[in-house]
Every structure is written in C-alpha cells, then in structure tokens.
C-alpha cells in the first residue's frame, strides 16, 4: 500500500470504529487536527485508535509522547503506519 491508500483506509477505519456520524472519508482533511478543535476527538477515541492500530496493522504506540505526534492528523498517522509496515 502506498501512502494514499493508507490515508484512505485510515479514514474509513476511523469513521467505522469511532462511528462518526454523517462524515464521509473525503470530509476528513489529510492535515486536519484529529483531537480537540479539529475533528473533536477525545481520549476515549484515542483508545479506539490505539486498538485500531494494533488490530489492523499490528502496531503499538509506545507512550503518550509518541502518541501525541502520531495522532496529530491523518497524515501523521498514515506516515507512521507506512514507515512501520513496509517490508
């Protein structure tokens, strides 16, 4: 998968696992801030993202410092997945 495919997949997974109502993948900007003022996610949504990364990509976010960088936007999430799933 290239970065574009991962971005698209992540948006779909986010919408599904967080049950984001009335939001289509194209509605989420690649650089849109996910937590707080952007998409408005909170720490319980962070649980879903941690689990989502574990289940779908076998990736573990080590701690909150790493999480803070990775969970910033779809772009940062996709970059993390891309760099850590390349064989």
């Amino acid at each position: 998968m290239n970065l574009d495919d991962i971005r698209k997949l992540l948006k779909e997974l986010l919408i599904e696992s967080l049950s984001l109502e009335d939001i289509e993948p194209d509605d989420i900007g690649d650089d849109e801030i996910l937590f707080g003022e952007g998409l408005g996610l909170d720490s319980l949504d962070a649980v879903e993202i941690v689990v989502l990364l574990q289940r779908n990509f076998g990736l573990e976010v080590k701690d909150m410092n790493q999480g803070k960088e990775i969970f910033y936007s779809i772009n940062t999430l996709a970059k993390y997945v891309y760099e850590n799933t390349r064989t």
Partner: protein
Amino acid sequence: MDRQKINNIDKPATRKRGNRLGFWFFEMFIRISGLYGAYGFLYIVSLYYIIFDKEAVYSAKPYIEKRFPQSGYFKKYLHIYRLFISQGRQLIDRFSVICSKKDVFDLKLNGYEKLKNIIQESEKGLILLTSHFGNWQIALTALNKLDKKVFLLMREEDNQAVRDFLNVGNEKGDINIISPEQEFGGVIEIVNALSKGHIVSIMGDRRYGSKASKVNFLGDYAYFPYSAFAIAASAKCPVVVLLAAKNSAHEYVVDVTNVLYPQCSRRKKDIELVPWLQQYADILEEFANRYPYQCFLFHDIWKDE
C-alpha cells in the same frame, strides 16, 4: 490537543489533611499505644473534625443524606462522626501495615479462584475497578499472589503513603503508576498494559472531570464515570470489581467475585454502557447497605459537575 480526563486528573478541591509531623506523631502513637490506643484517640480527633472542619462535614453529607434519608439534624451528625471514626481506623490500619512491614490483618479473599481462571484463560489483561468503599489499598496487597504486574491510574505526587505501602517504585514491586495527568489521560499506556496481559486499576466511583452517565444509586440518580467500561469494551477485556471491607478488628474481606464484560459498538457510549454502570452501582449499594460506615466517597456524586 484535547486533554479529556479519564480519571483522577483534576486536583482535588478539598485541602489535604495530614503532614509529615502528623504522620510521625501517629506512627509514634501506634508504636506506643498499639492499634487499639490509636483507635481510641480517633474519637477525639473525629470530634475535632466534626466541630471545626466544615469542609469535611460538608463533603460527607451527600452520602449520609442518601444512605440515611430519615435521619434528623443531630442523627445526621452522629452518622458523619461514625463515618470519620471508621475512615480513621482504616487509615491507621494502612499506616500500621506500612510501619510494621508485616501482615497485621487477615485477608479473606472471595473470588480468587474465579479471578485466577479468568487470567489464565485470557491473553488480555483486566481492569480492576476500585472504589472509595472500604480499604482498596489493603485489597490490592491481597492480590500479590496473582503474580501479575499491576498498573494504578493515579496522580503520583499525592500518594506517597500509598506508593510506600504498595511498594510502588521499588524494583522488586509489581505495581506501577500510570499518570492521568498526561496527553490522552494515560489511555495509551492503559491499552498497552492490557494488551500485554497486565492488570490496570482504575477508580470507578468518582469522575474527577471525566465523562459520566446517570444511574440509580441509593434512591436517586448519581453520576458515575464510564471511561473504565469504555476502555474495557474497546480492549475486549473484563472489569473486575474490587471491594475490601473491614469485617472485624483484625480481618478484611476482599471481594473480587463481580466480573463484568462491558460492550459498546457505537458512538453513544454514555447510553450503551449504562447497564454495566448500573450493575456496578448496585454492587456498591449492596456494600453501602452492609457496611454503611465504610463508604468514603466524600463527594456529591448525585450532582452534575
């Protein structure tokens, strides 16, 4: 970024009671007079709090008014006095264990085999739901024999006595702290710990700014945080309710028989998790009915924050 609270994040509004000199005095008092001497001294100390510490009395009132709705003005104060004495006894018990470094109390553990089976059958960890009911710190020590790594979700700096007691920070100890005062409220560390099969202990009866749902508790609607249940549902692990009641002078009964398996698939967690929250509230209500003076909530959970 959003710093939505999971639990125990906000600084308590109430002032902290006790200082190093006070602890030293109490340690000496316990050494000299023994456990019963220290218990006796509590009658005077509690009377002082009843008369002069309006904040303490005010914080105890909501529970007492719900638990003893028929009580008149003076009876209410008598209940609060008994509650203070009971809490003081349990603090002394904790303290005497810290001082003596040996088993001062017999711990009767209900549900241990069930808990052991759950741990053996699942690769996932579990959430240990603690409450301000009874002596949860003593309860945790009863679980040492499970030989599992335990993570406590709690602020570090406020709990030195608890840290000492539970052997936190000691390399030989199996208890570690996850601070909720960090980005995402510590959930990343919680989910990682659970996925590695560890135990994560979370306080379940006070919200400290986190999201909550209304459930029936002691005859009225109270607000209970649902984050522990939401994490368990996402991580697909059980929630084990941990309670410890002082049964007699030298015995505590630690109960882990109540195991809940919360599920929620959609975004409306506050609604979907209510059945499990209600089960938890019912367990606490049964405890409060059985041990009315071992409920140390000291907060109006019936009022929305």
